[in-house]
């Protein structure tokens, strides 16, 4: 699942009241995704009771977004079973550690992108991910092979 500005926008009040300091709810949505603004900055959402259900949903959707890595990868540990599909499919792992992660085992290198610790996946070294930096490639292999949607990308 990807979190997009549109998904966030749909749940905002959509009144363009500007209380958040943005011109429109849509631009606020973009900034939330890019972690430049916080949901709390939209005061009507918190103050007006009628938005409560939307707020709940937004909170759920954005859970973990602040801890999201620079590539926008978020892991919901509660959903992760530690199956390691994501670790093994990663093309970077396959080329850097062909007889470890590339062959289905635990890493034999010290700086994998992802690794299973205490039964759930942890982000160890995001700099190696193809989504990182200026020349990034929008790789989705890990997310696509997670059966429980424990991996999400924030797409701003």
């Amino acid at each position, binding site marked *: 699942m990807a979190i997009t500005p549109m998904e966030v926008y749909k749940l905002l009040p959509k009144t363009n009241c500007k209380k958040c300091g943005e011109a429109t709810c849509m631009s606020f949505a973009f900034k939330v995704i890019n972690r430049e603004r916080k949901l709390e900055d939209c005061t009507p959402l918190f103050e007006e009771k009628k938005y409560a259900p939307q707020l709940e949903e937004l909170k759920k959707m954005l859970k973990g977004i602040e801890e999201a890595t620079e590539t926008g990868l978020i892991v919901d540990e509660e959903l*992760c*079973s*530690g*199956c*390691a*599909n994501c*670790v*093994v*499919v990663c*093309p970077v792992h*396959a080329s850097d550690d*062909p007889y470890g992660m*590339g*062959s*289905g*085992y*635990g890493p034999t290198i010290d700086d994998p992108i992802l*690794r*299973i*610790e*205490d*039964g*759930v996946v942890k982000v160890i070294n995001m700099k190696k991910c193809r989504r990182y930096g200026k020349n990034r490639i929008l790789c989705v292999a890990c997310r*696509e*092979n997670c*059966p*429980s949607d424990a991996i999400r990308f924030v797409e701003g």
Partner: protein
Amino acid sequence: MVTCAGCSCLCTDIVVKDKVFNACRRGASIFRNAENNKAKPKVDGKEVDFDTALNKAIELISNSKNLAVYGLDTVPLEAQELAIKLAEKKEAFIDDNSSFCLGDFVEMILKKEIPTTTLDEVKKNAYVIFYWGTDPYNSLSRHLSLYTYYPRAGKRQRGYEEDRFLVVVDVRKSHTAKLAKKNARFIQVNNDLELIDGFISALDGKAGNYFKDVSRIISEMKRADFNVIFGGLGLKYGLNSDYSRFLEMVNKMNEISNVYFLPAGFHANMRGFNELMFEKTGFVNRYSFREGKASKDFEFKNLILNDEIDTALIIGTDPLNSLPFEVARKLSKIKKIVIDPKNTFTARTADVVLPSAITGYDQGGTMVRSDGVRIEVEPLKEGDVSDISILKRILEGI
């Protein structure tokens, strides 16, 4: 590196330091919770010293007229061997979880009724990979990443999307079924036999059920000389104990390509118990040493329902927790000796509790993976007791 005995994958690359590395959630929790909820030696619910409990167990077993030995799927072969000896000596019944799990499939393999292979060969060679009536993501978490669809090895270096073809057959869109995307098929069935008939028809050159999916899969199978079907409980129940059509299908598939079968097993050493029993008796489970044969009547659950036993020796399993209510109710009325590392539900109502050790954590031994490969398990540390030492002493005492 240590071995995890959390399921029949028996992963050997687990590292335990301040954290547990590489194990799935279930495996990691075994190591992380090893010291919690430990069993204590007990007689009639009261804590006693170990030898008192052991002597009481020996007494109950010696006095039993109709004993059943049950469980055993989480303990090493060496302990299973002793339990079988004990059952033989007492002319007792013996059974494990495989009688309602995948024992039938293991039996077909041991009787050589179906071609089989190992997970290492699957990893190196398999192209079309079926998961039929099983959701390994939930029951054998690392099966796909370690052995089947995802690893690159041998002839399969180009990754899952190019070098493997996944087929998931299930009654619902399981977690595993969600992985069937590019170069893959998910077939939702109401009745497994309809799909089997579909394959048989197509292989005979006729159009039948599920024709589009089936003919695509057959043409994929022809592209490789190594394909594999993993069968789970869903398939077993779908076939209702009549495997003839399924065997016919696999045989027909083998006329066009090599197709192997493996059970997608669950308990760590279930296959080990089946193999030992088969060597000794020609049957894989639910056996009576008094009658010298196996029968559905000798399934642990049925022995209890039919009031056939006065005492049960329960090793490494928690039947009160897993068996249906009416069985559990009756089970609470007979004498029970529980050998288990944990203070399980069954242990709480047992007449005697003998604390043992956790395979891979504080006891070692030989375990048999779901493909029949024997794995020597080195424990993380050596404990004071083990299933092997306890069973040895019981056997000497009776």
